[in-house]
């Protein structure tokens, strides 16, 4: 197992290096420049600024310099935000997005799984139909509609919760709910389908034939076998939730990484775009590793190569 994980970490480094390279050259192919209000600057002034940031060097030289810095953990400085280091920007913004995403993921998955299990047990009953209804709504209606509805009714009409910003737990409630609905719906769908299938399998009859009660049958024998597909979809979902969701962060004025990313793209803030992209990539590859390790923990048949047990 340890050997496998080390091997995977090695691959991760290679993957990240490739992603860094591709993004770097793609970025260089983009039109536009980080200089705002270009027309107000003279040719000479522009040259001085570009020179200062190393943007006038040939692209391969810039590339080597960037990778060199990257290896030392230096992501460069923002061109737009008063010379702030990119790492600082990321470190300020990521925890907020990650926190919001994690809440939404945990709440969404838990509620979704419970809904799915209930629907599977009471297959083709009103419980099933209601759970289905809820998950169809959750999948088909985008989160910003829920966000807007929550803000209007809960925030404005009832005045129960603050409608924007980030800091207190009250401020976290509405964005978390708005964000949790989609993962909840997905988890409910997957859980229901898988659980129905698992509950129809022979080993469930074996478990019942031992005289176990339904709770034991369901949770000791059913759940674990139904988890694999859920883990598969929830992995990438975790990434997209925790790396910041532009829309929800905008609606609730949450200073997260999603919002920052879009701003940087609009302003050609190369170093921030690169930094954020690399962070996303790292997180993604990391979660995939976690998912693979989880597979083995859940299902002994896919214990990873390299391990003996």
């Amino acid at each position, binding site marked *: 197992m340890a050997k496998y994980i080390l091997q995977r970490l090695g691959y991760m480094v290679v993957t990240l290096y490739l992603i860094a390279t591709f993004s770097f050259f793609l970025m260089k192919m983009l039109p536009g420049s980080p200089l705002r209000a270009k027309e107000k600057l003279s040719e000479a002034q522009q040259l001085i600024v570009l020179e200062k940031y190393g943007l006038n060097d040939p692209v391969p030289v810039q590339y080597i310099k960037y990778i060199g810095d990257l290896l030392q953990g230096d992501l460069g400085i923002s061109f737009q935000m008063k010379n702030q280091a990119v790492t600082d920007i990321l470190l300020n913004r990521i925890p907020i997005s990650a926190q919001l995403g994690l809440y939404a993921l945990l709440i969404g998955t838990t509620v979704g799984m419970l809904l799915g299990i209930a629907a599977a047990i009471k297959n083709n009953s009103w419980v099933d139909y209601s759970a289905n209804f809820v998950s169809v709504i959750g999948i088909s209606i985008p989160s910003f509609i829920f966000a807007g509805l929550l803000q209007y009714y809960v925030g404005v009409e009832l005045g129960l919760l603050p409608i924007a910003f980030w800091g207190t737990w009250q401020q976290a409630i509405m964005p978390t709910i708005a964000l949790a609905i989609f993962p909840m719906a997905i988890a409910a769908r997957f859980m229901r389908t898988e659980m129905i299938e698992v509950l129809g*399998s*022979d*080993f469930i*009859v*074996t*478990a*019942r*034939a*031992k*005289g*176990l*009660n339904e709770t*034991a049958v369901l949770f*000791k*024998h059913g759940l*674990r*076998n139904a988890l694999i597909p859920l883990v598969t979809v929830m992995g990438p979902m975790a990434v997209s939730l925790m790396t910041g969701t532009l829309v929800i962060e905008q609606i609730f004025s949450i200073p997260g990484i999603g919002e920052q990313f879009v701003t940087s793209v609009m302003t050609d803030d190369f170093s921030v775009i690169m930094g954020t992209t690399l962070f996303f990539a790292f997180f993604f590859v990391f979660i995939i590793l976690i998912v693979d390790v989880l597979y083995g923990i*859940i*299902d*002994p*048949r896919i214990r990873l190569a390299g391990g003996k047990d």
Partner: protein
Amino acid sequence: MENILEVKNLHVSFDTHGGEVTAVRGVSFDLKKGETLAIVGESGSGKSVTTRAIARLIPSPPGRIKEGEILFNGKDLAKLKEKQMQQIRGKDISTIFQDPMTSLNPTMKIGKQIMEGLMKHQKMDRSLAKKKAIELLDLVGLPDAKERVDQYPHQFSGGQRQRVVIAIALACNPQILIADEPTTALDVTIQAQILELMKDIQRKTESSIIFITHDLGVVANVADRVAVMYAGKIVEIGTVDEIFYNPKHPYTWGLLGSMPTLDNEEESLVAIPGSPPDMLQPPKGDAFAPRNEYALEIDNELDPPMFKVSDTHYAATWLLHEYAPKVEPPAAVKKRMKGFGNTGASPISKKGDD
């Protein structure tokens, strides 16, 4: 010998979108202490449903026990609440299922799967249950039980898994063991070993076995009595000798005739023509009549009652009525019956009967 189980007029139905499927239509039999009763019949004849109803393992909905009694030590299982049934299932009545590849939980160590029943019914603690699980694995002939108890099902072969399934079923010394085609999914040499194991265990534990199969060779090998089922009813029941040497029901003739043997290579296999009736609309009269070359007029009108052949032998065919024409079993079956006498019923029994 005393009866440990009496099934009386059992009806089991499934409610489907197409209507009510009457899977079991009035089955009655009893099971004595320490005996092995084989239930044979085509797929869909209701053998599995009957035994699942006894263990109350019919999923409901769609299934339900419509009517009838299942008396186990005088208690009517058909009327028990699920909670009470959980105290009996796995403890007094255990089931061995057909397919060892799917009847074990792939994500749980086999030791734990054996221990579950012990911890529930015999209130053993973890370490004691594990010890007992190892003993059970030894009993069912699995080598290196101590190490293997901590392994997962995918680390075992089909035959080994079936041994594990049997160990699970035996864990609490059940009085009744229901074996639902326990050897069908296994290859022939492993079949013989598993049958041998079951006979051996029965000798040691004196439990009663209900053995479902469609393999008559297996029946001859393991059973004391045989019940032949067709379309949700028992059409003939008797001791193994009575069923094999003196079969009365044309359906039993058909089954015996369609049994392949090693020494009749010049003959083609006899098949029963047609297919079993649709149990959504069970036919009027005798369900077997449309496929029965010996069917009488009355078969299309009235379902035959059980006629007594001897104290232990009953068959549901109008041919046994005093007014019925005398009909002999077909020649192929007669020849087959002679064959049983001198060689045993099948290649399997030759191996197993030592």
